[in-house]
C-alpha cells in the first residue's frame, strides 16, 4: 500500500499504524514484564515464547482438545440459531416467544449451568460442547433475524407476483439478504465458543486449555498462565479474521441501509399496547415455569440439586429462613449490580466513542481494531484474575472487566452502522462540503443508532456474565461467588434462586433497552426501524 501524496500527516498508510501499534504494544508489554519481575504478575512476550517453545507438545494437545469442543459447539450453536431464526420467520405468531426463550437461555449464568450440565452428561466433553453452543447461538440468532428481514419490499412483491409463499421468500430472498449479518454474527461467536469450551472444562475434565489454565494459576506459573491466555486469544483473533475474510470472499459487505419512508402503520392506543406486553410477559412466565418443571421431571433429575419452581418459591418465601435467604441473595445481587452497571455503561460509551474516533481519524482503525480484538478475545477466565491483580480488588478491576467484555462488540456494531450511512445522505453533505465532524454528528451517528442499540441489548447478558465471572474467579463477592459457593454448601435452592434472579434481571434490562431504542429510533432513524 502506498501513501497517497498530499493527504497530510494523518493519512499514514494503514500498515504503518498497524505494525507500529503492534510493536509499541509488545515493547510496553515486555517492559511491564521486566519491571514487575519477581512479583508474579506479568509475563512478557519473551517469557511466553520461552514457555511455548518448551511446552509446545503439551499446549498443542490441549489446544486441539479445546478447539475440537469449541468447534463442535460453534457449529451446533449456529445451526440451532439458524433453525430458530427460520422458524421464527415462518411462524411469525411464535416469533416473540422463540426470541424470548432464546434470550432467557442465553441469560442463564455459566457458573450455574456448567455443573448442571456435568451432572446431566456425566464424564466426557458434553458440557464443554454445550456451553460453547450456548455461548454463541444468541449472538448469531439476533443479527440473523434482522438480516432475514433486510430486503427491499419490492423483492417480496416480485415473489408474490409469481404466486409464491413464505418458503420461497425465505429461500430466494431472505437467506441471501441475511448472509452479511450471519457473517458478522459468526465473527462475534468464534471467541465466545472458545470461552464456553474452556469454562466447560472447569466442570471436571482431564485435558484442555481450561485444565492447563487452572493448573498454571494454582502453580503460580505466571509465564504459563500468560502463554495460555495468549494462545487462546491468538486462536480467537485468527478465527475472527478468517471469518471476516470468508465474508469478504463471499462479497458480503453489509449493504447500505435501505431508505424507506417511515411506516405509517397506525399504532394501537398506549393502553392496549401495555396490555399486550403484559399478556406476553405472563405467557412467557407460564411457559418457562412449565418447561422448567417438565424438563426436570422428563429427565428425572434428582431434586437434591435440580430444584423445581416450587422449591425456589419455598426457599425464598415460605420456609422459616426465607427472610435470611432473601437478604443473602439480594445483598449479593446489589454487590454485583453496583459493578455491572457502571461497567456496562462504560463499555458502551467506549465502544461508541472509539467507533466515532475511527471514522474521524482514518488510520486509527488499523491501530485500534487489532488491540480491541485481542482484548476481547482473551478468555475472561484468564483475564479476570490478571486484571484484578493488576487493578486491585476494588471496584475498578471488575468494572474494567465488564467494560472490556462489552466494548468490542459495540465498537464493531457501531463501525458497521457508521459505514452503512446511505450514500445519498453522504452525497448531500459532500455537496455542501460539510466538515467531517458535522457529517459524523448529523448523518452517520443517526445511521449508527440502530446498530448501537442492538449492541446495547446484546451487552446486557454479556455484562452480567463478565461481572459474575470476575466475582467467581477473582474478587470473591457478589452473585458469582454466591453461586460458586453453593457447590460447597449444597445449597442448590440458593443456586436456582440466583439463576432466576439473574435471568429475570437480564430479561428486564434487555426489554428496557429495547423500549428506549424504540423511543429514540422513532425520532432519529425512523426510516430504518427494523420491522
Amino acid at each position, binding site marked *: 500500500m502506498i501513501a497517497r501524496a498530499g493527504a497530510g500527516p494523518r493519512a499514514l498508510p494503514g500498515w504503518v499504524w498497524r505494525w507500529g501499534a503492534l510493536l509499541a504494544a509488545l515493547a510496553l508489554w515486555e517492559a511491564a514484564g521486566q519491571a514487575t519481575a519477581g512479583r508474579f504478575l506479568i509475563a512478557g512476550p519473551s517469557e511466553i515464547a520461552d514457555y511455548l517453545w518448551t511446552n509446545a507438545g503439551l499446549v498443542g494437545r490441549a489446544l486441539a482438545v479445546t478447539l475440537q469442543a469449541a468447534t463442535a459447539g460453534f457449529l451446533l450453536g449456529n445451526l440451532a440459531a439458524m433453525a430458530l431464526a427460520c422458524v421464527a420467520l415462518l411462524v411469525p405468531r411464535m416469533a416473540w416467544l422463540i426470541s424470548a426463550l432464546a434470550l432467557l437461555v442465553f441469560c442463564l449464568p455459566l457458573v450455574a449451568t456448567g*455443573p448442571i450440565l456435568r451432572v446431566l452428561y456425566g464424564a466426557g466433553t458434553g458440557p464443554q460442547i454445550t456451553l460453547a453452543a450456548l455461548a454463541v447461538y444468541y449472538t448469531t440468532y439476533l443479527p440473523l433475524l434482522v438480516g432475514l428481514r433486510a430486503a427491499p419490499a419490492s423483492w417480496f412483491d416480485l415473489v408474490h407476483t409469481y404466486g409464491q409463499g413464505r418458503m420461497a421468500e425465505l429461500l430466494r430472498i431472505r437467506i441471501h439478504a441475511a448472509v452479511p449479518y450471519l457473517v458478522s454474527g459468526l465473527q462475534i461467536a468464534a471467541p465466545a465458543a472458545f470461552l464456553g469450551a474452556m469454562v466447560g472444562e472447569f466442570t471436571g475434565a482431564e485435558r484442555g486449555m481450561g*485444565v492447563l489454565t487452572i493448573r498454571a*494459576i*494454582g502453580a503460580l*506459573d505466571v509465564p504459563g498462565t500468560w502463554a495460555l491466555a495468549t494462545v487462546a486469544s491468538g486462536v480467537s483473533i485468527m478465527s475472527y479474521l478468517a471469518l471476516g475474510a470468508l465474508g469478504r470472499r463471499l462479497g458480503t459487505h453489509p449493504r447500505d441501509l435501505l431508505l424507506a419512508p417511515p411506516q405509517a402503520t397506525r399504532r394501537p392506543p398506549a393502553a392496549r399496547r401495555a396490555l399486550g406486553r403484559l399478556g406476553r410477559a405472563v405467557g412467557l412466565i407460564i411457559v418457562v415455569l412449565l418447561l422448567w418443571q417438565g424438563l426436570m421431571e422428563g429427565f428425572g433429575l434428582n431434586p437434591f440439586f435440580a430444584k423445581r419452581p416450587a422449591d425456589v418459591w419455598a426457599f425464598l418465601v415460605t420456609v422459616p429462613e426465607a427472610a435470611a435467604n432473601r437478604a443473602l441473595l439480594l445483598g449479593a445481587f446489589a454487590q454485583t449490580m453496583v459493578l455491572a452497571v457502571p461497567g456496562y455503561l462504560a463499555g458502551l460509551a467506549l465502544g461508541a466513542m472509539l467507533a466515532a474516533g475511527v471514522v474521524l481519524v482514518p488510520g486509527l482503525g488499523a491501530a485500534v481494531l487489532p488491540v480491541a480484538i485481542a482484548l476481547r478475545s482473551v478468555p475472561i477466565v484468564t483475564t479476570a484474575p490478571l486484571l484484578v491483580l493488576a487493578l486491585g480488588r476494588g471496584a475498578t478491576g471488575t468494572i474494567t472487566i465488564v467494560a472490556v467484555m462489552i466494548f468490542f462488540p459495540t465498537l464493531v456494531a457501531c463501525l458497521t452502522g457508521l459505514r452503512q450511512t446511505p450514500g445519498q445522505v453522504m452525497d448531500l453533505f459532500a455537496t455542501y462540503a460539510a466538515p467531517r465532524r458535522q457529517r459524523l454528528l448529523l448523518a452517520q451517528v443517526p445511521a449508527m443508532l440502530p446498530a448501537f442499540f442492538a449492541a446495547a441489548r446484546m451487552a446486557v447478558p454479556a455484562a452480567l456474565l463478565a461481572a459474575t465471572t470476575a466475582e467467581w474467579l477473582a474478587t*470473591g463477592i457478589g452473585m458469582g461467588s454466591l453461586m460458586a459457593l453453593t457447590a460447597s454448601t449444597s445449597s442448590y435452592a440458593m443456586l436456582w434462586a440466583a439463576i432466576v434472579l439473574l435471568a429475570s434481571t437480564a430479561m428486564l434490562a434487555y426489554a428496557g433497552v429495547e423500549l428506549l431504542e424504540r423511543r429514540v429510533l422513532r425520532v432519529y432513524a425512523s426510516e430504518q426501524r427494523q420491522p
Partner: protein
Amino acid sequence: MPLITTSRRRFLALGAAGLSASAFGLRAAQAQSAVALQLSWLHSVQFGGSYIAQSKGYWRDLGLEVALNPGGPNAPVEPPVVSGQALVGISAADYTAAAVANGAPFRIIGVAMQKNPFAIASLPGNPVNSPADLVGKKIGMALANTPVLQALCTLNGVDITQIEIVPTQYDAAPLVSGQVDCLLCWQTDLPVAMTMQGVDNMTMLMADHGYALHSQTYIATTDALANRRADLVALMKGEIMGWQDYEADTAAAAQLTVDMFPDAGLDLATQVLQAERQAPLMFSDLTRANGFGWFTDETVAANIETLALLGRSVTPDLWDRSLLEEAHAA
C-alpha cells in the same frame, strides 16, 4: 485410559469361569462391575492411591471397573453421587454435613485425610506461627471460608474482627505480591507451588490448633450401602491397597500420576513434593494400627464438635465404618 477398556474382551473370555482367584494374585474371573469414583479436583497426586489401584489392577482383580472422574473449580461432587452417576465421591466432612442438611442421604464410609489440610501460609519475613499471630494481619481467602477461619479463632481464643479478610481467588500471587500477609489454603497446594517457584514460605496447619475435620472423605448414599455393598467393599479395598503402596513410596506415586495424565500439565518435581507433604495428613498412628481410612468414635466426636463451630449439627451415624471393616478383613 487404556487400563479399563479391555473389560469387554475379558468379559467374554472369562465370563464363564467360576471362582474368584484374586487370593492367588490371579485375575478375577467374574464379570466386571462398572462404577465411578467422583474425585474432588483435577487429576493430581492428591489421588495417587487411586491411580495405583487402577494401574496395578487391584480393582480389576476384585471384579470392579472403576472410572476416575476428575473434578474442577466448577465441578459438582455431591450431585453425581446422589443421582447415582458415581458410586462413591471424595468429599469432606463439612461439605458432606451441608449436603446432608439439604437432604442428601450420605454416609461417610472412609477418611483419606485424617488431618484437615487447611493451613495458614505466610512468608518468613512476616510469619504466622500460631493463631494469635493472625491478629492485625490481612488474610487472603475465599469469603466462603469465613466459617473455617471463625472456627479456628473460636478454638484458639482469637478475635476474628482483629483480622482483615481480603477476598481472593485460590492463588498464591496475592501473598507473593504483597497484597495480603497470609493465605488460607491447603497445606499441599499453594505452599508447594510457592516452594517450587523459589518463594520461601511457612505454613501453620490448622489441624495442629484444634481444627479437627476429616477431609477427602469417601461418601456413598444409604441406598448404595444397602444395595451395592459388594461393589462398595471392593472399591474401598482397592483404595486401601493403593494407598498402602502410596505410603511405601510417594515418589513412585508421583511418577505414576505424571505418566498416567500426560496432558494434565503436571510437573514431576511438584508432584513429588505434594505427595510427600500429603502423606503425614493421611497416615497416622491410628491408620498404622487399624489401616488406611480408619476413624473411631473419638475422632468422630472431635469432628462433630468442629462441625458445630461451623454451624453444622450432625450425629455420629453420619459415619459408617462397616464397609471399611469388611474391606480390611477381606
